[in-house]
């Protein structure tokens, strides 16, 4: 075992870790923007609104992320002419666009399910109290329902963030040089297989537990006064 070779390439690995974090943050931000309307659509009583949202969530939670990535990146090639006509081929040719699109859709589906649960777990009393104060519609949602739901959903959302961080390693299969991609590239150059994979694993481990810690602090800040016991499960 010779880790001195890793030392030499450490800046490259850090660059890869930076790419991993960057993809995670971008996908989370866009995914979250989709997730909340999607959660609301899921809760709607109108079948024309809730059934597409239900099918979207079912599809993206029920199929492997790797298939979703391949479907978008390789699958779009089948419609090259049509996409060129629409002027969209430039996007679908780009692995970054496809990788992030797949991650966004995937995390949007999982987060929508989390927020759906959280929104329906907001106590009725809170909403009634809001109505009694004269709020309704968007104001009620923005001031009462959403903040409360966010607090309820935060532990589960923290889990989702960690899963997404690890799921980004799959974009290395479509040529993106994130931490996993860089490791694979360096291994094919140096043949130091386990040295690089072990280092990459350690870097993921550190990123994961820093995130776990940050979410724990955030949860404490947001619901410390309630002292709820938090139970987390794998998704």
């Amino acid at each position, binding site marked *: *075992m010779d880790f001195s070779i890793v030392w030499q390439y450490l800046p490259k690995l850090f660059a890869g870790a930076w790419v991993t974090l960057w993809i995670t943050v971008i996908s989370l931000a866009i995914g979250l923007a989709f997730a909340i309307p999607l959660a609301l659509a899921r809760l709607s009583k109108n079948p024309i609104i809730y059934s597409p949202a239900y099918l979207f969530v079912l599809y993206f939670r029920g199929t492997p992320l790797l298939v979703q990535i391949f479907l978008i990146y390789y699958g779009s090639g089948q419609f090259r002419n049509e996409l060129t006509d629409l002027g969209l081929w430039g996007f679908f040719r780009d692995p970054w666009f496809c990788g992030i699109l797949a991650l966004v859709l995937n995390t949007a589906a999982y987060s929508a399910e989390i927020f759906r649960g959280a929104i329906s777990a907001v106590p009725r009393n809170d909403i009634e109290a809001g109505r009694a104060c004269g709020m309704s519609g968007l104001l009620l949602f923005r001031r009462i329902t959403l903040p409360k739901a966010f607090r309820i959903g935060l532990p589960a959302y923290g889990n989702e963030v960690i899963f997404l961080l690890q799921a980004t390693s799959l974009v290395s299969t479509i040529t993106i040089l994130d931490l996993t991609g860089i490791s694979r590239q360096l291994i094919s150059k140096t043949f130091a297989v386990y040295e690089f994979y072990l280092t990459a694993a350690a870097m993921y481990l550190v990123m994961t537990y820093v995130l776990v810690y940050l979410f724990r602090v955030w949860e404490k800040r947001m619901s410390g006064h309630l002292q709820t016991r938090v139970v987390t499960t794998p998704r």
Partner: protein
Amino acid sequence: MLELHGYGWLLFDGLQLTIAVGLCAMVVAVLLGLLGSWGKLADHWLANVVANVYTTVVRGVPELILLLLVYFGAPTLIQSIATSMGYDIRIDINPFIAGTITIGFIYGAFATEVLRGAFQSIPKGQAEAARAIGMHQIMVFRRILLPQAMRFALPGLGNVWMVLIKATALISIIQLDELMRKTKIASNATHEPFTFYLLASFIYLGITLVSMLVQKRAETWANKGVMR
């Protein structure tokens, strides 16, 4: 209707292998989960440390990295140790075994947490009562603890299974001819990647839906004797 150019059977072959790997990996995961939950609940510091390190490390590292580490890293490591001891050997791990073991090893960590919770939710008095009747420790485990823990663990283990079967798609990266890899072969041959990846995704969706149905049935069956 989808035009498959006669490649439909190829995907069916892949599906069989996917389910085989999935089931074998689930067995490994549950066995490791039992071992791990015992490690977490045992009154022995070393068992506690080992079990905690296991779940902490596995849940903090992506499946892909672990898979590549086992499949490509382990043989190289063993070979370089053998070389340093003066032996010259070559090891190739069978992708089926590497895939099963790795996926089982990863989801064993999740199963550990599920089973730990399940064992903890059995009232302590029950094991004490069984001991008082005169059952041996092993018999207490087999007759009292395990059947109840399995009932409590059923929703969680079902969850683990559904994540696990989706994770088997990763094994295509180590060249095992399961559903994903067969799909790649078919889409390369026909130049219709969208058709085949879409079909593959529907097959995975089908597995998920069937699993959900089975899980619901199993939970109703397991909770038959419980008043609600």
